[in-house]
């Protein structure tokens, strides 16, 4: 009798196994991860119809950079006017959603904090010459810096402290470093101009926040000549994109913005890719503008069902800072420690990165960072200089708006940069420090917060109570560059993971199968019913066997 029961069970198990094997064999083979054969890139050769080294206007000695600009404008009559309309020039941006006045001229971030009173230094990344204080002439066309974006010798460098100028004679920089920056040959620089390269954009954007890889996490000098692993589009031996391939620029207006990011390009409807040159105000610097919003092949159709809620970047940029470490935190409150002789000090961490600088405080660095993930609908609210804050809370320098239910948000990867920075303990507002300058109040020369903050706030034409403290702040940076090859994209189980909750464990308001979102009561009742049924039939069966044996 018992063996007969066993046979029953074996039959069923065998049936199930057969089915499992059949279905397993029939399943569509896993998506091939082999990359398409990369076409051998032709040596990048200018296809321009003009060779600027043959232009008479440029075959002369230039004593200053603005003289070069004057030469450019002889032919490119509208160029300076175009540049002067852009953020690169004005350092101002009014967010159309929030009406907040942003831009480097106005915001206070948690890196070097503010540009006000420090223009001489900061304007090394201004697309112009001579901005050192409020008296800068924003109308003067020869003040526009053409070559920083167009030269290709790699010798032209704007030095912090020179108000946006390059050095005109060899100089030691940084001061006391023993490193000599050579004065560029402006004639050669002028003759080398052409289309803007990765190195041109990178001259500022790779070094934001005061050094290589400090700020963004997805933009640093490793993108100058990246391998495929780092950036599938910029891969030097492959597609070899420049920044402008995506940031398709017209009339010097570069599309793409972190003040008002495009987060759901066409995700709500079945869009066709952005048409280059079509006047529709859409942002060409989005994944969808080339790939559409159903980019995965039919064998991976389930992935296309993710594109309405998950930004491409979430899966395709699995980690940022894959080329080198990025700065993750900056604590200004510890700045100012000096040697007994009154000299500033610097320390390095085990990875060789600056971990302390008397001028700036403590830093931490990380590479291959797993981003944080948030709902984001493109609306960004800034804590401005005049915004009242609650110093008992962590202050969000910029807060990304978004929710699972607003129909506009997607799950985005962000770098969150944390720190402590000065604020006015009486008025509860952020403060503008005067950091750079050879005067008696600049923090980097005097290490005196009171003088520095008083001078900074005076330059910003804002009140200061005279009492300062340090408040915890965080700032978010959407991760969108350094797109990995598809083989490195996240796998399903990196988010659908019941054990750890996966990558999106902090993303609320959405039901994800296999993340442990399931109803625990249902599970308890369900398994109990199944178990009780099993126990019931086992007892019944045992009873039958027992009574039969007895009988």
């Amino acid at each position, binding site marked *: *009798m018992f063996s*007969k*029961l066993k*046979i*029953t*069970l074996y*039959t*069923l198990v065998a*049936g*199930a196994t*057969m*089915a*499992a094997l*059949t*279905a*397993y064999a*029939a*399943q*569509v083979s*896993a998506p091939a991860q082999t990359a398409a054969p990369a076409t051998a890139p032709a040596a990048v050769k200018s296809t321009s119809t003009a060779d600027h080294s043959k232009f008479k206007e440029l075959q002369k000695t230039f004593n200053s950079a603005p003289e070069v600009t004057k030469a450019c404008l002889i032919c490119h009559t509208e160029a300076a006017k175009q540049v002067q309309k852009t953020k690169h020039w004005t350092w101002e941006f009014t967010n159309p959603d929030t009406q907040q006045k942003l831009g480097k001229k106005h915001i206070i971030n948690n890196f070097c904090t503010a540009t006000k009173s420090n223009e001489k230094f900061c304007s090394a990344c201004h697309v112009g010459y001579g901005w050192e204080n409020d008296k800068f002439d924003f109308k003067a066309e020869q003040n526009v810096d053409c070559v920083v974006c167009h030269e290709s010798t790699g010798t032209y460098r704007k030095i912090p402290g020179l108000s946006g100028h390059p050095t005109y004679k060899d100089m030691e920089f940084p001061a006391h470093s023993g490193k000599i920056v050579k004065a560029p040959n402006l004639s050669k620089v002028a003759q080398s101009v052409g289309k803007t390269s990765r190195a041109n954009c990178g001259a500022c954007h790779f070094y934001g926040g005061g050094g290589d890889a400090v700020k963004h996490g997805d933009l640093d000098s490793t993108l100058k000549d990246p391998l495929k692993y780092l950036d599938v589009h910029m891969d030097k031996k492959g597609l070899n994109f420049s920044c402008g391939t995506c940031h398709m620029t017209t009339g010097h207006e570069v599309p793409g913005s972190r003040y008002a990011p495009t987060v759901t390009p066409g995700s709500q409807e079945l869009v066709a890719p952005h048409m280059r040159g079509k006047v529709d105000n859409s942002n060409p610097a989005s994944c969808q503008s080339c790939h559409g919003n159903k980019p995965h092949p039919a064998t991976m*159709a*389930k992935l*296309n*069902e993710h594109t*309405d809620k998950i930004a491409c970047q979430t899966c395709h940029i699995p980690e940022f800072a894959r080329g080198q470490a990025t700065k993750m935190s900056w604590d200004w409150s510890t700045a100012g420690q000096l040697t007994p002789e009154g000299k500033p000090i610097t320390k390095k961490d085990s990875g060789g990165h600056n971990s302390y600088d008397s001028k700036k405080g403590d830093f931490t660095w990380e590479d291959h960072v797993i981003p944080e993930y948030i709902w984001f609908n493109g609306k960004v609210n800034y804590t401005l200089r005049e915004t009242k804050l609650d110093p008992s809370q962590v202050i969000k320098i910029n807060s990304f708006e978004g929710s699972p239910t607003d129909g506009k948000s997607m799950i985005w990867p962000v770098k969150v940069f944390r720190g402590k920075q000065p604020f006015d303990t009486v008025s509860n507002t952020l403060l503008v420090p005067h950091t750079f300058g050879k005067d008696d109040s600049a923090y980097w020369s005097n290490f005196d917060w009171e003088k520095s903050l008083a001078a900074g706030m005076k330059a910003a034409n804002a009140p200061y109570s005279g009492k300062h403290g340090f408040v915890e702040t965080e700032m978010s940076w959407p991760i969108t560059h350094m797109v990995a090859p598809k083989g490195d994209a996240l*796998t*399903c*189980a990196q988010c*659908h*993971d*019941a*054990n750890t909750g996966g990558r999106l464990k902090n993303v609320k308001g*959405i*039901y994800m*199968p*296999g*993340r*442990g*979102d*399931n*109803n625990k009561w*249902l*599970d308890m*009742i*369900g*398994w109990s*019913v*199944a178990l009780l*049924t*099993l126990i*019931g*039939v086992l007892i*019944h*069966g045992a*009873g*039958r066997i027992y*009574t*039969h044996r007895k*009988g």
Partner: protein
Amino acid sequence: MSSEKIYVFKIFERIWHWSQASLIIFMLITGFEVHGSYTLFGFAKAVSLHTIAAWTLIGLWVFAIFWHITTGEWKQYIPTMDKVVAMIKFYSVGIFNDAPHPFKATQLKKHNPLQRLAYIGVLLFIGPLLWLTGWFYLFYGVWQAWGIDKFLSLEWVAFFHTAGAFMMLAFLIAHVYLTTAGHTPTSHIKAMITGWEEV
């Protein structure tokens, strides 16, 4: 015990039964993995296997429904209260005392009244619950295009799909056991394999 035999399950029915049984067991295994109960194939593979098995089962059902309608065999599932009490008595008392099985299968009535009730429950309740929620699950990507995203949430679709799965699991356990509760412990199983049942 009598050795009389009748031919109750035709070849199509038997193939249908065993392939359906295999698919349901397989879908329970992969489904509960997708649910997050354990890791066996890995999430991605479990999802794709579960989906393939679902479409296979749908295909099988198209044939099964066609067969039941054209042969009139659907009438086998019409519920009846006749002998229900007798069946309950048999399972709870008689089966322990070698009492005779109160139901004699014929070609016109191959299921005992409790089977009829159980199967009609599976066919009209558990099955549709799983199908309906399963389809909503499969077509989650087009909810918005169909305008049904306002009325449905994946959380509840998943809830009822899982609830259906637990019911199917409980049915499966009871069903497997009750195959041994025929005229002889193996008479039901033999019938489902060979088509011939001892009555």
